[in-house]
């Protein structure tokens, strides 16, 4: 039974909130129970950003993660320091190894190192590092159909930005490839 509790974290501008919203939207489209809870506060502008996403077969009682995350996606070092302890034993951590040189010390979680910014850079657009990570996440967790996530992005981009869909698809696929090498 699916009961995925994900923390996504990074700095403002990395597209963290969007990543969370795409997973939530995709989950909703697959008729799962979902919630998206952002951090909000004076620290948002230029500071850290994080959100909790729940995707479940059962109605979501509490939308807040409290040391019971099944997965943490950390896009920068302060996020890794802060949120790796929130993952339950046996959970998964996805580290953006382009910006984080350190490794996760915990031995009771499975860690994947995805060089999101390097892959995005190779594709020629730094803004799609978040989609690289989402591709890796879906490959590892299989909590949702990859196409649902891409469709959620497509509707988010809308008509005016539809031309960006191609490079986002590439980023998503490259992320999945990078994850596969570590599985």
């Amino acid at each position, binding site marked *: 039974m699916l009961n995925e509790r994900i923390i996504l974290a990074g700095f403002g501008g990395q597209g963290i909130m969007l990543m969370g919203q795409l997973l*939530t939207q995709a989950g909703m489209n697959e008729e799962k129970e979902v919630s998206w*809870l952002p951090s*909000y506060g004076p620290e948002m502008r230029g500071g850290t950003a994080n959100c909790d996403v729940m995707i479940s077969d059962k109605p979501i*009682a*509490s*939308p807040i993660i*409290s040391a019971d995350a099944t997965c943490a996606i950390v896009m920068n070092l302060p996020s890794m320091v802060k949120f790796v302890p929130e993952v339950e034993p046996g959970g998964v951590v996805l580290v953006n190894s382009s910006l984080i040189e350190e490794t996760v010390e915990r031995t009771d979680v499975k860690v994947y190192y995805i060089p999101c910014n390097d892959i995005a850079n190779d594709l020629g657009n730094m803004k799609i590092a978040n989609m690289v990570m989402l591709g890796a996440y879906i490959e590892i967790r299989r909590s949702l159909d990859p196409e649902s996530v891409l469709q959620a992005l497509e509707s988010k981009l809308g008509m005016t930005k539809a031309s960006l869909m191609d490079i986002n698809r590439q980023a998503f696929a490259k992320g999945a490839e990078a994850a596969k090498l570590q599985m």
Partner: protein
Amino acid sequence: MSKVLMKGNEAIGAAAIAAGCKYFFGYPITPQSELPEYMSARLPKIGGVYLQAESEVAAINMVYGAAGTGKRVMTSSSSPGIALKQEGISYIAGAELPCVIVNMVRGGPGLGSIQPAQSDYNQATRGGGDGDYKLLVYAPGNIQEMVDLVQLAFDKADYYRNPVMILGDGMMGQMMEPVEFKEMPKMDLPAKDWATTGTQEKRKPNVINSLYLAAEELEQHNIHLQTKYQEMIDKEIMFEEYNMEGAELVIVAYGTTARISKAAVDLLQAQGIHVGLIRPITVWPFPYQAIKDLPESAKNILCVEMSMGQMIDDVRIGNEGQRPIHFVGRSGGMIPTPQLVIDKVKEILNGGK
């Protein structure tokens, strides 16, 4: 209609518009600013008015004026902003006008924090303004329920000619959940023959006022208001019971803390500990009878709040001294975890205080 993913604050705006609200007067404050923002984008396109007032006091008085015309009108704010509106709310209740007021509560007192809290319970249920008045207060437990209750609130406000409050919190305002805008059953409402819409020289002018210089008259007015509030007590109480049969302890919580408590109830059940939950959906009128009539099996009551303990007084009234009442909560914008609730339940069941 199919489901859409919406932020709580925006969902309230969409629900209000679905209920026929075309007028919004407010002043921005975190964590509810997405609601006025949403209204500012939508209302001008449907022939309505969005106006950002110079202050909360001005905004509530604009609501007073608009409500006097019989049109559906709304305002929203968060804790210190709602505190500023209290004078106007008392006037609107005194003048018997319908409106919907949203409070997405944040930590207090004073300017406090911008994080979620439930520490405006007393302000909402006891009346923060002067005089013997009451608001019908809905405390939704999730965004879908919030959408449904906002639409109901406009009907109830019209029916009772009284302000209705939606009591949420910063978390419910900021989070996203799927919502569905259902076709709501329409209440049969009386014509608004009291509205000040111009006489056309065909009738006597209507007067909207909360000033009664003759004490005898004001007393009669107050007696009339009380019959209305009694009707709300008789007809409007809403609550949810969860896992109650055979529960050895019952948690009482509303809104966000009810969600957290529900998670705790499920986790405890998996450990073989049977705990029930009563979730008031109206916090005024409060479901006293449900507290009074707990199952025999329940030996203790636990209140969970994001405050230092305010609703606990209503639980005491309903309990009538039957069972020990315990409290656990966080305040200032801190959110209790299911684990905090679980630990407290175990402490109580093991004989702790």
